[in-house]
């Protein structure tokens, strides 16, 4: 299961010695198996919100519930895919993918079977023994996604994972991401600043306001999948997102 609830989540940062309120009471309920995108102006704290969901940061107020249970630490039920992948350069692709399994004490043969399945799924099999510096940015993100999926988390937290990719690679991964979601039925929370990306991926899109951020609006995107970014019917949705987002960009 993977129903995630954020209740009135607040977070302060120190800025020039003064506390700065980044998150001003974020309320968001993500249903089990839902694919939701979070967009917002830059610096609104959407990545911070994701890190709080992951347990990497503590909220200054409010709480996070997973299937009704309060969370206050990281856990293998919520795995994050980082912006730059955060792959370990001292490990091969295969060892990177197996890292979490190894930490969990899963025996070698079983690890092997699991990683094989996901390396296959992400079309990485021929790179299994490569080191990360030998891979393109797109390949690295595939490894990062595989590394998260092997943990079989209830919730996948994705922090602008495609921001550094070229357009063709990104378009490809946008489709693959939808197929993975349909196949694995994970709950996915995907943070992005890219509006077309949000329209392609999200079943719902949560728009954050500027600081101190709250969820300003949640838009439903009921459109058949897999969606492709060049689909003109998505433009209408993009415009809806943009009309909510535009007043928030550029501060007060």
């Amino acid at each position, binding site marked *: 299961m993977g129903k995630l609830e954020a209740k009135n989540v607040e977070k302060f940062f120190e800025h020039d010695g003064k506390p700065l309120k980044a998150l001003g009471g974020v309320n968001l309920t993500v249903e089990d198996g839902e694919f939701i995108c979070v967009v917002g102006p830059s610096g609104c704290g959407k990545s911070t919100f994701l890190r709080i969901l992951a347990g990497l940061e503590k909220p200054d107020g409010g709480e996070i519930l997973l299937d009704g249970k309060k969370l206050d630490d*990281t856990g*293998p039920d919520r795995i994050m895919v980082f912006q730059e992948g955060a792959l370990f*350069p001292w490990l091969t692709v295969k060892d990177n993918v197996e890292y*979490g399994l190894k930490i969990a004490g899963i025996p070698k043969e079983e690890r092997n079977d699991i990683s094989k399945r996901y390396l296959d799924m992400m079309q990485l099999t021929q790179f299994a023994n490569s080191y990360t510096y030998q891979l393109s940015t797109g390949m690295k993100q595939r490894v990062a996604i595989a590394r998260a999926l092997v943990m079989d988390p209830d919730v996948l937290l994705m922090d602008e994972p495609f921001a550094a990719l070229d357009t063709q690679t990104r378009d490809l991964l946008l489709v693959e991401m939808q197929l993975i979601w349909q196949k694995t039925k994970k709950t996915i929370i995907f943070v992005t600043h890219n509006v077309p990306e949000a329209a392609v991926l999200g079943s719902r899109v949560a728009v954050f306001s500027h600081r101190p951020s709250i969820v300003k609006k949640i838009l439903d995107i009921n459109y058949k999948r897999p969606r492709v970014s060049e689909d003109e019917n998505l433009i209408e949705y993009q415009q809806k997102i943009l009309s909510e987002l535009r007043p928030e960009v550029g501060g007060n």
Partner: protein
Amino acid sequence: MKGSLFGKKIIFYIAIILVWQAIDTANVWPDNIFPSPIEVAEDLVYGISDGSLFYGIGTSMLRLIIGLSIAISGGLILGIFMARVETVNQTIGSLVLGLQSIPSIAWVPLAILWFGLTDSGIIFVTAIGAIFAVTINTYTGVKNIDPSYIEAARNMGAKGSQLVTTVLIPAAFPYMISGFKQGWAFAWRGVIGAELLFSFLGLGFLLNVGRQLNDVSQVIAMMLVIMGIGILIDGFVFKKLEYKVMSRWGLR
């Protein structure tokens, strides 16, 4: 290119030996102050044939290996604690910086008082001369780890000693290698210096015997051996290790 570099070196060293021989032949200084290269070579051959040279090298190397092992394990632990626990850094950290400024030779009197003229005393001087270089480089290495590596590992369930062995040490390894390299250099100076003053077996002892016997060619022969071992260990152990780590980490 590589061949011509090697050629240059050969020519350079042959030239040094020729100039040395020429000065000796010109009889600028008496033989008991300035021996010929042949006399030095004879001394080396003698040391090899009666086994005393190998015994000396073996003794010094054993002390070096024990001392350096202590320095590396102690330095790693201290450096990691300094980097991860702010209080340790604020207290022990400042002391480490101070202690590092003490030349290893300056520990000799204390070592003699504490351990007497024993192996342990020499190993103590060797270890203490090297430990702080390892500590400081380890500290710097751990401090410079990309925080997303640590977060990714925590997110996948790594805690405590698992985090240390699977992320902190491998991620900081390129820095640690520099620490080991510096540590080895300090340890080698330390062991020779201590043997000289303890006058208790080893290459430093043989060097001192040469002085006591007024045998200048033995003194120079031992200095050449000390230098030769330094070059060998630097080139065959550390350069290779460094190259391997740098290419694996994608830093080359």
